[in-house]
């Protein structure tokens, strides 16, 4: 069995180099005179020694093993894998952006500050909440900001609250954030129609509750029709209402979280606003807040003077402080701002409408005979930008699990949807096509699903052992967790949890 997987460390050969240092134009003072022995490194870090051609080939070869958005469909629920416009890379690479130091005097960074100011304004208008901080680095970071702001708000009023409510359909980051913010998670149930169970909410909303974290539409892809009443209950006990912006792609220009009653909103610029996902980041999680939350926003804030000049305001006495260094992921702001400029108000509204159209169309195609009885819809209502199917029909009738369907999709060069989330739905498949897919691509996806199910009716073993055509087949994740090997062994040798030839 030829094993062609080699790490960059294993390609290392003593003496090879890709880097040549610039000319040393200063006196060659001995190191002993510059650093105390106690802090001098004795053994150099064992980094690879390779030439540029080998370095390039290594990483280009690795890249060829990645499925990616520029090649195919990614119907991942709540991830909004829409097209990454190519203009954005060009404008992000402009030296005025890419080569600008974060601590440059604001007087000499007016272009950057104006860009941030305008992006803030656009996000405020989209959210329906007037004050924005671009600082958080990702959605989770935005969520944490939201709860820290909530805490500051309550403490400023002389109150100490202890709980935060989240629906049982919430994304895992929500409860994780609650704990990090020092609150106790209290779960609110889901009603039969897929929305928040209002009775359960009223039961649990008391003056110990600091906040309710929601997303609307929710992770089932359903718009909660009772949102106004929910807001009333939450505000009635003096708590804040937090909007997880992961699903904003359904409602831009149609309904605004601020108008629904939310106090704090986070945006995922790497979802709704096209920042490329990069295989796991970077992203950004800016927040928009109401007037009563504004004093607590992180420092610094981008401000605009009467003369039209921009500055960073560090003088914020009630601010929660800083969530991170400098001003945030500016490179991400450039791309999102370019996107908003390109689409404009009309275009953003159209994006949401087509996102919802595409989801409902795909839902209809997947409800057809030959698919629908195996993958019934979890909640039979008009969906928004995503919908959740249950694989229980396939499990019962074909002895086929959602995991197997997902793995067989890989052989069809289609990325599977989000699987086994939300936890509420048995063998869940959460599907979000986004607005940038053509009708033909949606039809093709439906055809792929149909063919996998037909094949399984004949022989379920095929899918159970899929994939077959990918760079590797199913991997021993249990072994990786039991005996974790999280780095290559020193001196270039591969660290092998399973000696060659031994199967897991």
């Amino acid at each position, binding site marked *: 069995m030829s094993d062609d997987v080699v790490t960059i460390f294993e390609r290392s050969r003593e003496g090879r180099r890709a880097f040549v240092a610039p000319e040393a134009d200063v006196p060659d003072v001995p190191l002993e005179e510059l650093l105390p022995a106690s802090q001098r490194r004795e053994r150099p870090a064992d980094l690879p020694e390779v030439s540029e051609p080998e370095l390039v080939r290594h990483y280009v070869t690795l890249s060829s093993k990645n499925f990616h958005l520029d090649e195919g469909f990614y119907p991942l629920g709540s991830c909004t894998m829409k097209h990454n416009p190519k203009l954005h890379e060009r404008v992000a690479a402009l030296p005025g952006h890419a080569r600008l130091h974060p601590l440059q005097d604001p007087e000499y960074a007016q272009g950057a500050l104006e860009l941030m100011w305008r992006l803030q304004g656009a996000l405020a208008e989209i959210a329906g909440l007037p004050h924005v901080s671009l600082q958080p680095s990702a959605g989770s970071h935005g969520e944490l900001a939201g709860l820290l702001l909530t805490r500051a708000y309550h403490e400023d009023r002389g109150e100490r609250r202890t709980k935060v409510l989240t629906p049982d359909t919430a994304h895992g980051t929500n409860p994780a954030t609650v704990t990090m913010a020092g609150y106790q998670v209290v779960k609110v149930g889901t009603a039969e129609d897929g929305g928040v169970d209002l009775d359960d909410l009223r039961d649990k909303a008391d003056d110990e509750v600091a906040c309710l974290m929601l997303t609307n539409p929710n992770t089932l892809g359903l718009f909660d029709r009772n949102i106004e009443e929910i807001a009333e209950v939450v505000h009635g006990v003096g708590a804040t209402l937090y909007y997880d912006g992961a699903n904003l792609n359904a409602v831009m220009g149609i309904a605004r979280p601020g108008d629904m009653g939310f106090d704090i909103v986070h945006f995922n610029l790497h979802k709704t606003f096209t920042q490329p996902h990069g295989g796991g980041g970077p992203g950004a999680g800016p927040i928009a807040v109401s007037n009563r939350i504004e004093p607590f926003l992180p420092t610094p804030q981008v401000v605009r003077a009467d003369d039209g000049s921009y500055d960073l305001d560090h003088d914020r006495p009630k601010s929660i402080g800083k969530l991170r260094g400098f001003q945030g992921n500016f490179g991400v702001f450039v791309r999102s701002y370019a996107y908003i400029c390109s689409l404009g108000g009309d275009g953003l509204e159209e994006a949401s409408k087509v996102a919802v159209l595409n989801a409902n169309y795909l839902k209809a195609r997947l409800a057809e005979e030959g698919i629908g009885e195996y993958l019934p819809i979890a909640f039979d209502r008009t969906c928004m930008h995503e919908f959740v199917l249950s694989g229980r029909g396939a499990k019962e009738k074909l002895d086929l699990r959602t995991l197997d369907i997902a793995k067989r999709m890989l052989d069809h060069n289609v990325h599977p949807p989000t699987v*086994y989330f939300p936890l509420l739905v048995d063998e869940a498949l959460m599907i979000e096509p986004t607005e940038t897919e053509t009708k033909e691509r949606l039809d093709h996806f439906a055809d792929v699903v149909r063919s996998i199910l037909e094949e399984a009716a004949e022989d379920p073993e095929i899918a159970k052992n899929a994939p077959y055509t990918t760079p590797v087949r199913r991997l021993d*994740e*249990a072994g990786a*967790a*039991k005996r974790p090997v999280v780095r290559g062994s020193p001196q270039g040798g591969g660290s092998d949890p399973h000696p060659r030839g031994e199967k897991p």
Partner: protein
Amino acid sequence: MAEASYPEELKYHAEHDWARIEGDEATFGITWYAQDALGEVVFFDPPEPGAQVTKDEAYAEVESVKAVSDVFAPLSGEILQVNEALGDSPEKINQDPYGEGWLVKVRMSDPAEVDSLMDVGAYRELL
């Protein structure tokens, strides 16, 4: 263990834990149903010998690749022994949940609690 099995001589707890009573000592583990739902166990984080466990409360966690599950004490008592072998081979919990996959051994603090546990018939019905 491929086939569902629930030994007659054991006592069962609604959170899918079993207890084997031997004099004033009891051995705990998780049932076939629990290990099947979890998938291949990759990690068991045991409590320390000498620690107290309380009936109906979680005393440890069992992890598979994709899930974490609390393990509940069917009875109260003091931990006498933990199954050290699970450190290297946590999959014993799947392969032999009632034998080599035992989790902890305790000295019961209140043997009367045994009466509140289910016998195999009642547990099977629960499933």
